[in-house]
C-alpha cells in the first residue's frame, strides 16, 4: 500500500529529527473516521525546526532529506510512494492544538499519527471552503464527533459564530 510507505517515511523523518511531530490531516486524515472520499494528495501538518535566529520556517531540510532518498518534487508537493505529499506548518492556535492532541492509529502494523475527528471537523469549519463544509457534514452525518469535545474546541478557538451560521445553513431542516 503506497500510503503506508508515506506513513513509514514520516515515522522515519520523525526518528531522524527532520520533523518534530506530524499528523495526517485533510481527506486522508478524515478517512480514518469516515468513508473514503477521492483525494489527490496527502496533507501532513508538522512541527518544523527553524534555523537558530531565523523566525521563518523553512521546508528545505524536509525536501533535502526526501530528495536524498529518491523522492521527487512535483510543484508544491513531494512524491512519496507515488502520492503527492504536501507539508504544512501549523500556522494558528487551532492547528497547534490539533497537532499536540493528535492520536496514533495502527495501519497494518505501522503507527500513524492523525488529527482527532473533532479537530478535523473544527479545521474544516475554520477553513470553510465548499469541500470543507461537505466534510464537516460527513462527520456529523456519520455521528463521528464527540459533541462536548467538539463544542469545547469551537469555544476555545472562537468558532462558535461560524458553527451557528453553518447550523442555520445546513442543519436547520435535518429531520
Amino acid at each position: 500500500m503506497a500510503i503506508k510507505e508515506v506513513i513509514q517515511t514520516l515515522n522515519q523523518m520523525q526518528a531522524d529529527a527532520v520533523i518534530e511531530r506530524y499528523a495526517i490531516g485533510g481527506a486522508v486524515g478524515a478517512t480514518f473516521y469516515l468513508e473514503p472520499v477521492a483525494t489527490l494528495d496527502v496533507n501532513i501538518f508538522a512541527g518544523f525546526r527553524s534555523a537558530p535566529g531565523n523566525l521563518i520556517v523553512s521546508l528545505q531540510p524536509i525536501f533535502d532529506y526526501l530528495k536524498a532518498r529518491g523522492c521527487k518534487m512535483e510543484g508544491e508537493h513531494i512524491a512519496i510512494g507515488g502520492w503527492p505529499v504536501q507539508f504544512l506548518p501549523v500556522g494558528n492556535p487551532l492547528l497547534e492544538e490539533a497537532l499536540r492532541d493528535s492520536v496514533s492509529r495502527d495501519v497494518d502494523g505501522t503507527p500513524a499519527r492523525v488529527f482527532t475527528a473533532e479537530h478535523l471537523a473544527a479545521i474544516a469549519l475554520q477553513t470553510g471552503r465548499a469541500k470543507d463544509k461537505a466534510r464537516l457534514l460527513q462527520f456529523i452525518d456519520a455521528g463521528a464527533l464527540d459533541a462536548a469535545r467538539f463544542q469545547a474546541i469551537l469555544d476555545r478557538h472562537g468558532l462558535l459564530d461560524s458553527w451557528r451560521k453553518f447550523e442555520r445553513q445546513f442543519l436547520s431542516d435535518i429531520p
Partner: protein
Amino acid sequence: MNLDLQKILESKRAWRRNLAARPVAEKLRLLEVLRDRAMAIRGRTAQAERRK
C-alpha cells in the same frame, strides 16, 4: 424499480456507514483506488479539452 426517495437515501446512508466502519488499512487502499480513478478521469478530460 423502487422510487421511494427516503428508502434510497437511507440505503445510501447505510452503505456509507458500512464503508466508514471498515478497517483503516482497507479504507486507505480504497482511497488509492479512488485516486487512481480520479486521475484517469482528469487525464481523459484534459485530453478531450486539448482535442477541442
